[in-house]
């Protein structure tokens, strides 16, 4: 057994082109559908608009567009960067706890080069491999990496994208090793940029880094042979000495057996609502309690939420005033869900946040962190802020009645995957936000649910290509 770099490169090279079974195909199809939706929706965001504006400003003269809305004649790394930024612009893409948001990065990287047709089976194969490398390296770099201030989605996501593109191109082991070495000199991404458009840019950069590293390696660029191994190598520097290389120990078994791939276990959490995952369980519990009482929002006198300790960490805005703040607000998300019967992208506009009815309802929402809500890990030492334990909500109506509801698993998590109607609802919402015809949802779903039968994914998605080109007169400078 060689070093980490050797083993990872061998893993990618030997599994490239591997045919995965139905379970893997279905898991990839679900997150590809989701990623396509959020990439399209990104055009309706500020960061997405800025990314597309940049892309147009550096593109050639062709007026042709790709399905995700960018110019057709962009070099692949810039195409990947743009699509990857669109994907994360609304914070609505899927998540693998501890590893960030891999799926949209992988899709953006794999479809970046329009001259390389990608079939459904080829995509599934490269995707599963890239996802695995992303998951493994996120574990190997350890939690100190994130605590130090790096954004794992960007830093480690770059290696997942590198692995996926290498697998797609069928690079041999030395070339994969070279690509990892190059990627090791490409990865940045600071949490200091959270709350700005540069956060979604991180997702785009990860996709772009993967495409760049793989194609430079393909064109003969050399790099360190063992980028991950030993002192002052990637893992040492980026883990601050707290690397956990044992996270890669059973990679070889995985190649043989294949039933513990990260895409299946633990698998992605697909976001049902375009806001922080930490709000989900309270939102759903409140809606269930409201349904049980059958009262409209204006009859609600109090909403008392009990959540596991740590839940409120990211939820910094009790009285948000902007759409971005509202995504990280428990009172707003709960109040808006009760008022509107759910949360959609339309719930997160500055105007929606300012509605008097929702402001009034926010005043009756209270939240407390309670150790009783996570009996197995009361302090949340080994739990992410959105998982473990349960959330209890007591909803009291003005007529004196009350109802209690408890939610354990987050909707969209592997334990509670989105149902087909929920998947369709989200895609429709995304299409509308991205300025596409929402009626296309059924056709997109019909094609992508049978991902393993698609001949050319880029072609299959051309129905999403925007029909109107935004006039270039809006270019600043």
């Amino acid at each position, binding site marked *: 057994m060689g070093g980490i770099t050797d083993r990872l490169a061998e893993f990618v090279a030997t599994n490239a082109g591997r045919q995965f079974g139905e379970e893997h195909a279905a898991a990839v199809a679900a997150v590809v559908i989701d990623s396509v939706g959020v990439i399209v929706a990104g055009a309706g965001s*500020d*960061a997405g*608009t*800025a*990314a597309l*504006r*940049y892309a147009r*400003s*550096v*593109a*050639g*003269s062709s007026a042709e567009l790709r399905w995700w809305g960018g110019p057709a*004649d*962009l*070099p*692949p*790394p*810039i195409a990947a960067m743009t699509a990857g930024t669109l994907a994360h612009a609304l914070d609505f893409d899927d998540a693998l706890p501890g590893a960030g948001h891999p799926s949209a990065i992988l899709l953006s990287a794999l479809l970046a080069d329009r001259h390389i047709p990608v079939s459904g089976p080829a995509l599934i194969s490269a995707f599963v491999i890239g996802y695995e490398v992303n998951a493994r390296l996120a574990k190997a770099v350890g939690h100190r990496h994130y605590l*130090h*201030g*790096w*954004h794992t989605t*960007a830093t480690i996501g770059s290696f997942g994208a590198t692995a996926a593109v290498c697998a797609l191109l069928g690079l041999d082991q030395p070339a994969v090793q070279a690509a990892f*070495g*190059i990627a*090791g*000199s*490409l*990865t*940045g*991404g*600071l*949490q*200091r*940029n959270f709350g*700005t*458009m*540069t956060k979604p*840019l*991180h997702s785009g*950069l990860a996709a772009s880094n993967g495409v760049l590293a793989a*194609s*430079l390696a393909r*064109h*003969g*660029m*050399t*790099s*360190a042979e063992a*980028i991950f191994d030993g002192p*002052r*190598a*990637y893992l*040492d*520097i980026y883990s601050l000495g707290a690397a956990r290389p044992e996270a890669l120990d059973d990679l070889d078994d995985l190649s043989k057996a294949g039933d513990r791939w990260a895409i299946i276990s633990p698998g992605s959490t697909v976001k049902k609502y375009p806001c922080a995952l930490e709000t989900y369980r309270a939102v759903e519990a409140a809606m269930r309690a409201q349904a049980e009482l059958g009262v409209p929002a204006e009859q609600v006198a109090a909403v008392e939420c009990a959540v596991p300790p740590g839940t409120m960490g990211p939820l910094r805005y009790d009285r948000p005033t902007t759409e971005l703040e509202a995504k990280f607000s428990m009172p707003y998300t709960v109040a808006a869900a009760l008022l509107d019967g759910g949360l959609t992208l339309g719930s997160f506009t500055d105007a929606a946040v300012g509605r008097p009815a929702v402001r009034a309802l926010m005043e009756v929402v209270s939240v407390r962190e309670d150790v009783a809500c996570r009996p197995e890990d009361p302090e949340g030492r080994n739990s992410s802020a959105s998982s473990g334990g349960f959330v209890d909500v007591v909803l009291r109506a003005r007529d004196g009645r009350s109802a209690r509801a408890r939610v354990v698993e987050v909707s969209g998590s592997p334990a509670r995957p989105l149902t087909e109607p929920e998947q369709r609802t989200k895609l429709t919402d995304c299409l509308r936000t991205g300025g596409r015809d929402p009626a296309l949802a059924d056709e997109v779903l019909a094609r992508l649910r049978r991902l393993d039968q698609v001949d050319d994914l880029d072609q299959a998605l051309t129905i999403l290509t925007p029909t109107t080109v935004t006039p270039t007169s809006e270019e*600043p*400078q």
Partner: protein
Amino acid sequence: MTDSLTARLADFVVETSREDFPDGIEDTVVRLIIDTVGVILAGRSGGAGENILRYADAVCGDPGGRTNWLGMPASAPPELVALVSSTLGHALDFDDELAGTGHPASILTSAMLALPVRPLSGERLIEAFAIGYEANVRVAHLVGHRHYRKGWHTTSTIGGFGAVAAAAKLLNLDATQLRTAFGIVGSLASGIQRNFGSMTKPLHSGLAARNGVLAAQLAAAGFTAAQDILDGPRGFVDIYADGGDHPDALDDLGRSWALLDPGPTLKKYPCCYATHRPIDAVLRLRAEHNLTPADVVAVIDRAPTFGLTPLIHHDPKTGLQGKFSLEYVVAAALLDGEITLGSFTDEAVNRPEIRALMPLLDAKEDPRCRPEDPTAADSSAGTGGFHEVTIRTTDGRELTTRVEYPSGSPKHPLSWDDSRAKFRDCLRAAGRDEARGMALFDALCGLPDLTDVHATLESAVA
């Protein structure tokens, strides 16, 4: 906010203009830019240069129409042009250097020339270069040596800050936009020393230039980012250098200029900087005493502590290894009377008459040769102390000379003749038209008066 490091640096870049430059800045920048154009033109003769150009060909295709001075389509995205240009610039390890900062000139020049700012006058280029250079040096000083010791390659990680400052100057970004661009470049910074000795090292230079161009153009396109990327806990300096070595690094911003003090080093020889002083010594003795290789029985080099550490190839077989072989460069200096790009082909390294001379070298480190820092706790391999070289001749003479500062360093700057010879060497190595190329050299000597730098560059290589 206005007092943050990030804001102070942005304000300096936005508010400074060439009227604020002390005497000497402009001349230094002209020398640096000419040198840099030469090494960029030479870059295609190295493996990294060849491969980055092949990559660029593949992603650009052949749209037809005009090409830029690097031979890329004029429509190629600026970030890609910057990546290619500065990878070429560092491909031969022949570009300038400033201790503690790395190799800024190729990064700055590449970033600025990649931007769609045309016509670009020599004056504006010089102005943005000088300001970007200073910004680069200041951020490098802010993070300090501890950043490098952790394994980062400062040329790459910090070079992006200089490039973005220079690019912002040319794009006329305001202070808010520049703080944003600094924020973006802080999320792009990367490059680790583990990749030294591979083609990814020159790629680092390309990445820094690309990062600067990308960040400046994204800020111009309306992206937002943290406004205080350098400052405070979990800011850039904290994450990449535990808070850095010199929080006061910006204090005399605008009052002292690194271009003048300590001033840049232009490399005279295209090989490891640690070999430059012994090469100078051998060439000097050879010239002063009219030596031929047949006269020499031994070459004894006494080097400062740490001064020989990077010179790891004692029996080099390739040109690249030859760059890190004291045995080879001393033999080549004795035989050829010069060290040029042509000295570092595989054929040149394997010449039989060279192999015969290589055993004559006796090199040792000696703490006496670094009296101010005998253990090299605070010194780099190529600077500090002195080399003492003695040549023993067949007729029993012992000829000795001592070199403290190598040719090309601020104490012994390259003469214009040296610069011309280097430029010509660069053109030859890359198989370029010499007459046209030297006409470019002459034109660039008048850089401050050029009205369209791109046109001048393109005319030389078209």
